[in-house]
């Protein structure tokens, strides 16, 4: 294929603006898909993605398309559409020359429209603004056009109108891609340089790398070197995703394809790394690698202790495909053996937890999520704490810092008051506010990540009747007046319920958690005190009364089946509980911290 006839682009959009449907339509138009093998939204290959309507792992497709009697190769790189995965978005954009910025004809510009737009600008991409869903009866094309012109600085004639659902405007869009997106600029005669923009694990072939050949040619059998690790591998197989796998002999400058090189573990590969031939002496990588660090942590424990090894197995397998997932063994007195897992964000956590339960069929208890704290100790050392129960004594701590984020909250201006109220309550520091148009604003706050992890997104949605859209980026660590709140059951600290939180919020939350636990924990053989404690100080206490009646009065006429049924019920009940210091604690209790409503 002539280099001049290759195009590499992404679709970027706010969640639910129709990205995956558009990708399907493009695949269909280019003949890559016939109706029969369309399983709605092919690029979203995981069931969970399809169910949630979100793309988690990006994928790509190389598509042939005829325009003016010339054959073109359109390479579409799909990107995940959620805030947790912005690093994945940025590295897949690094492999592109252009981006379709997709905007919903009813919703207009939203928080992630803007953050994705900036990412595309940073990567010097040619951006094609597209208003999608124009078939909707309440589509407001004129005012959305105005928004795009005013906010993003495009000209009216730049804007393409499509309906991914009906297929309207797709040909026009493909034409625009061919005309406006520049072809890949590299030199086929230079030494090999290829960019890894994604990887995944194939159970038969091992790790598969998705790459863009920026300069030179890569052949089957070549010895390659990954620049960041200097590890050398042999290329066993390479080829294209059309989107089906099509094996080839070589990939050359400008082409997007996959390679397998008998790499065993996905952790051996860093996405964003540069591939060169093993003997070449290139020293400058294509882009600078960024280490992605998990921001949200949670303890994951099997509900049944004999499933511990299965859980490890599941995490190992998930990690094969997801380098950003971290985990290490942890022991809780309350929950037994489990893992402390690190995630990019809340969605990432939800997805992993759900996959463990659904794909690996392991019932788990997850402790309430927390962020990673930076402790400055009195002996002038620093310590990072990712598990609240590991926090040292108060006397040993000089100060504690917690991570802050900068938020973009897009909201109709009638909700400004509500949003500000919520942000203040969540310890937000107001930065500024931009008007997108006369009716919508973008509000910026600096806010502790811990508050976002806690329940901010749900609250934001309910405060704004679902109208707000939200995005954030990590800013830095700031000193906070934080305390560790412990929960005691029957006088014993339940380590899995310990939390680190701001001192001003601790009393209320402690009170609420104690009340929730009282409701959730059934009456036991003996009276069980439930206490919330900061250091030595008890800030809340409730008693769960001892059970007074649990008896079958009569075993009538030799019918023992009722009694057996009752016992079976208790047995089942016990299975769903964790026994902590002779107290049977139901699974929900460990999540009760999350259901604290401060109002």
């Amino acid at each position, binding site marked *: 294929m002539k280099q001049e006839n290759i195009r590499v682009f992404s679709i970027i959009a706010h969640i639910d603006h129709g990205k995956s449907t558009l990708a399907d339509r493009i695949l269909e138009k280019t003949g890559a898909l016939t109706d029969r093998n369309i399983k709605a939204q092919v690029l979203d290959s995981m069931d969970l993605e399809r169910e949630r309507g979100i793309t988690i792992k990006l994928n790509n497709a190389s598509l042939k398309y005829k325009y003016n009697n010339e054959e073109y190769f359109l390479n579409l790189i799909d990107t995940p559409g959620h805030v947790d995965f912005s690093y994945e978005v940025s590295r897949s954009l690094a492999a592109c020359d252009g981006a379709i910025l997709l905007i919903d004809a009813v919703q207009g510009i939203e928080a992630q429209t803007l953050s994705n737009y900036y990412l595309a600008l940073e990567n010097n991409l040619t951006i094609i603004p597209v208003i999608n869903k124009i078939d909707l009866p309440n589509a407001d094309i004129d005012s959305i056009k105005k928004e795009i012109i005013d906010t993003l600085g495009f000209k009216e004639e730049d804007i393409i109108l499509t309906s991914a659902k009906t297929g309207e405007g797709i040909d026009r869009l493909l034409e625009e891609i061919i005309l406006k997106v520049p072809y890949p600029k590299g030199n086929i005669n230079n030494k090999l340089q290829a960019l890894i923009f994604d990887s995944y694990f194939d159970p038969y072939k091992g790790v598969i790398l998705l790459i863009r050949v920026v300069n030179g040619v890569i052949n089957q059998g070549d010895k390659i070197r990954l620049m960041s690790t200097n590890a050398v591998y042999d290329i066993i197989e390479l080829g294209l995703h059309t989107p089906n796998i099509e094996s080839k002999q070589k990939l050359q400058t400008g082409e997007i394809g996959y390679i397998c090189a008998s790499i065993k573990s996905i952790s051996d590969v860093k996405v964003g790394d540069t591939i060169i031939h093993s003997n070449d002496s290139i020293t400058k990588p294509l882009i600078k690698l960024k280490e992605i660090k998990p921001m949200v942590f949670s303890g994951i424990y099997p509900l049944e202790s004999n499933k511990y090894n299965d859980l490890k197995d599941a995490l190992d397998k998930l990690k094969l495909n997801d380098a950003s997932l971290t985990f290490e063994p942890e022991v809780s007195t309350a929950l037994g053996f489990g893992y402390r897992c690190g995630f990019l964000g809340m969605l990432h956590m939800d997805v992993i937890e759900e996959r463990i339960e659904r794909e690996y069929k392991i019932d788990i208890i997850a402790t309430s999520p927390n962020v990673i704290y930076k402790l400055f100790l009195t002996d002038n050392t620093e310590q990072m704490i990712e598990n609240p129960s590991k926090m040292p004594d108060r006397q040993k701590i000089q100060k504690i810092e917690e991570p802050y984020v900068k938020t973009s909250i897009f909201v109709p201006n009638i909700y400004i008051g509500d949003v500000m109220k919520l942000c203040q309550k969540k310890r937000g520091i107001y930065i500024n506010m931009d008007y997108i148009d006369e009716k919508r604003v973008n509000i910026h706050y600096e806010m502790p990540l811990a508050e976002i992890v806690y329940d901010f997104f749900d609250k934001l949605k309910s405060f704004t009747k679902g109208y707000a859209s939200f995005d954030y980026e990590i800013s830095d660590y700031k000193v906070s007046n934080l305390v560790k709140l412990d929960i005691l059951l029957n006088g014993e600290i339940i380590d899995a319920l310990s939390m680190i939180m701001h001192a001003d919020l601790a009393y209320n939350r402690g009170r609420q958690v104690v009340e929730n636990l009282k409701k959730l924990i059934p009456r036991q*053989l003996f009276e069980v005190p439930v206490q919330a404690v900061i250091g030595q100080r008890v800030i809340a206490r409730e008693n769960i*009364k001892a*059970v007074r009646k649990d*008896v079958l009065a009569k075993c009538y006429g*030799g019918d*023992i089946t009722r009694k057996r049924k009752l*016992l079976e019920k208790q047995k089942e009940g*016990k299975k769903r509980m964790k026994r902590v210091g002779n107290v049977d604690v139901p699974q929900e209790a460990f999540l009760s911290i999350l259901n604290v409503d401060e109002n």
Partner: protein
Amino acid sequence: MLMKTNIDAVYIHIPFCNKICNYCDFSKLYYNSTYVNKYLIALSKEIDKYYKYEKINTIYIGGGTPSCLSIIELKKLFKIVNKIHLYKDYEYTFECNLEDITEDKLKLLYKNKVNRLSIGVQSLNKNILKKLGRSLYSKRYLKQKIKLAKSIGFKNINIDLMFGINNCNSILKDIKYITKLNINHISVYSLIIEPHTKFYNNNESNIDQDIESKLYAKIVELLNNNNYIQYEISNFCKKGYECKHNIKYWNNDKYYGFGLSSHGYIYNYRYENTKSITSYIDGKYRLSKTIINKKIDIENYIMLNLRKIEGININEFNKKYNIDFEKKYNIEYLLKNKYLIKEKDNVKINKKYLYISNKILADILYNELDN
């Protein structure tokens, strides 16, 4: 032909009633002479089919209301039951309703070897009787009937009482009155609201567990003070008057159950008879059979024996099942906190905690030491 089967107890169910109580979920139907006749024929056939002529120690005829049958029907019934061979020191209980107790019927029972009456009184409080959907009777009426029964020769009489219907303490008054009648066995059951009862359908609920458990404690105390020995969660008697038949259930012993919806435990299985009168009359007796393997048998053994005040004899248990009870079950903290008491070779539930026996039982059975 005599076979050795270890079965020496028989329960016979008579499902007919003149009146259906609001709390009752046992198998029962309104009295109807045509059905009674057909039923007795089927019952006779069922006994012929399964009974292997063992010598029997205890017979219990329950219901429903067995006493609601007419004299002629009762004669037919006894003709059937008399096929059963009895040991010399047998116990033979017959359940009666107060209003069915007539001289003629009692004489007939006595003549046919019945030596124990179990009378369903439930309450002597008019409001409670009304709520339960039972006939109203006075204390004097009860006194007369007891006197009659004794005059005919019944020495062994039980009275069933019920509490927890409302917050009223009338049960204590009832007990005080009954103890004066020189009755040697009293069963006191708390109301259980079961599905398929009028109570259940009317969304009635139990009284608060704190109130109910206190009332239970008072009942136990009152009966103890009047020389009634508690030998099971709900059963009290004068010395030597324990119900031998029920003790067989709680010992996890074998027994035949004949009649509609009866349960039995014979050979290596437990069974339940059909609940449908038409099926039963057609001779389709069995509804289900459950093979009792060692694991289930052990659970049943523990569950049933712990109903008794004397509890489980560990030596017997260990010998019977070839298991060390105290090693197999993690009862250390139950003993330490006195939920369970160990006395000589017996482990039993502390009387104070009988009213939460299910919970204790679940802790014994399902907090096994981690394997």
